[in-house]
């Protein structure tokens, strides 16, 4: 298995023995081995942990892709509108700027935070954790970055924006000549990348990997 020498580790890792459910606090033993998938709390059904082979490798690949797609989504317009020879286009930042000009600065800040800052932080934090691990090093500031990631995640709303863009087509379609821009498709792709990463990534796998790198610091 020399080709896997610098891998994140094989899929057949032992699951953590004792876990407390994050939603009902019942401590329970998680059996080692078994099939792929998520392990649910036996009392309330919340996800305790996931057992997916090469979860960290797959998440890293998804996040590198997400970084590129996110950059594209920020550079190109989401949509453009033509009306009697005049042309107008909206980028993500342009939307926030337009709200600010219209006197709605708090809403502009909310839009910029949830569509630009938070997704960027999520991608950056994931890469910060996963790239060094892939290279066989423990990431700097592990605790701080993990806490940031946990705080940022609920506020990144790429998938909600994708739905809103579809609704906007309905609002503008009959009004004028509407063209979908590159960022429209990029945000749609980003939605799938984040959704996939969310179902595959497991922080228990991350910490097990870190513990394997630093045997002395293992609890």
């Amino acid at each position, binding site marked *: 298995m020399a080709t896997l020498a610098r891998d994140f580790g094989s899929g057949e890792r032992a699951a953590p023995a004792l876990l407390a459910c994050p939603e009902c*606090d019942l*401590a329970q033993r998680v059996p080692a081995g078994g099939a792929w998938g998520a392990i649910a709390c036996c009392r309330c059904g*919340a996800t305790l942990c996931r057992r997916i082979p090469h979860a960290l490798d797959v998440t890293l690949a998804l996040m590198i892709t997400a970084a590129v797609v996110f950059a594209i989504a920020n550079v190109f317009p989401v949509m453009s*509108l033509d009306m009697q020879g005049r042309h107008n286009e909206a980028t993500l930042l342009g*939307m926030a700027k337009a709200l600010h000009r219209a006197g709605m600065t708090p809403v502009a800040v909310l839009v910029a935070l949830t569509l630009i800052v938070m997704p960027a932080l999520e991608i950056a934090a994931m890469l910060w954790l996963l790239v060094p691990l892939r290279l066989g090093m423990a990431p700097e500031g592990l*605790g701080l970055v993990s806490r940031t990631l946990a705080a940022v995640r609920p506020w990144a709303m790429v998938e909600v*924006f994708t739905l809103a863009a579809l609704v906007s087509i309905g609002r503008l379609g009959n009004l004028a000549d509407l063209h979908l821009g590159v960022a429209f498709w990029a945000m749609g792709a980003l939605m799938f990348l984040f959704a996939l990463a969310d179902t595959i990534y497991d*922080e228990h796998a991350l910490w097990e990997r870190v*513990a394997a790198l630093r045997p002395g610091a293992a609890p």
Partner: protein
Amino acid sequence: MGWVACRVCGQLNRGRADARACCARCGSELRLRKPEAMARTIAFLAAAYVLYLPANLLPILETGELGGAKAADTILSGALKLWHGGWWPLAIVILIASIVIPFAKLVVLTWLVVSVRRGTATRLRGRTRLYRLVDTIGKWSMVDIYVGALLVGLVQFEPLATVSPGPAAIAFGAGVVLTMLASHSFDPRLLWDAAGARRG
């Protein structure tokens, strides 16, 4: 003496819950339950209730056209416009995301807070699931804010046609953020604690 699970990395730490301790693995502060969960949830909920009426009654978008005709749309009238324009699936999306979900969030979180106070011991699994649902769907209410932002960004053809945000945009945006904060600060483990305390 007992076990405390870390909120960030899931590690179980042995120790007393009242002492200020940090997780042995990731260094995050250890707490048995989310701090001041009930007080914070109630405060955020109260503020969200106050904003619910202006968010739904005031115009969220104002459209101006050549000839001086100015029209103001509330969330509901915007959805009805979509419906009459033949885009009824999108109208249903807006009705669910902007009217049903925010209201359901307020009602469900209020019910959960009341049931913790009363120490209700029935349907614990169902109530935990309901909390999980509310926590997950919360962000989808932002749809209307983004639709508004796109329209305001795109339709700037002075004096032919312009779209500008109405006062409900601030109330609605703040309402979404407040209900999200309310559901993040609520701790579903309190449901189980309250039931356990009643059983003795």
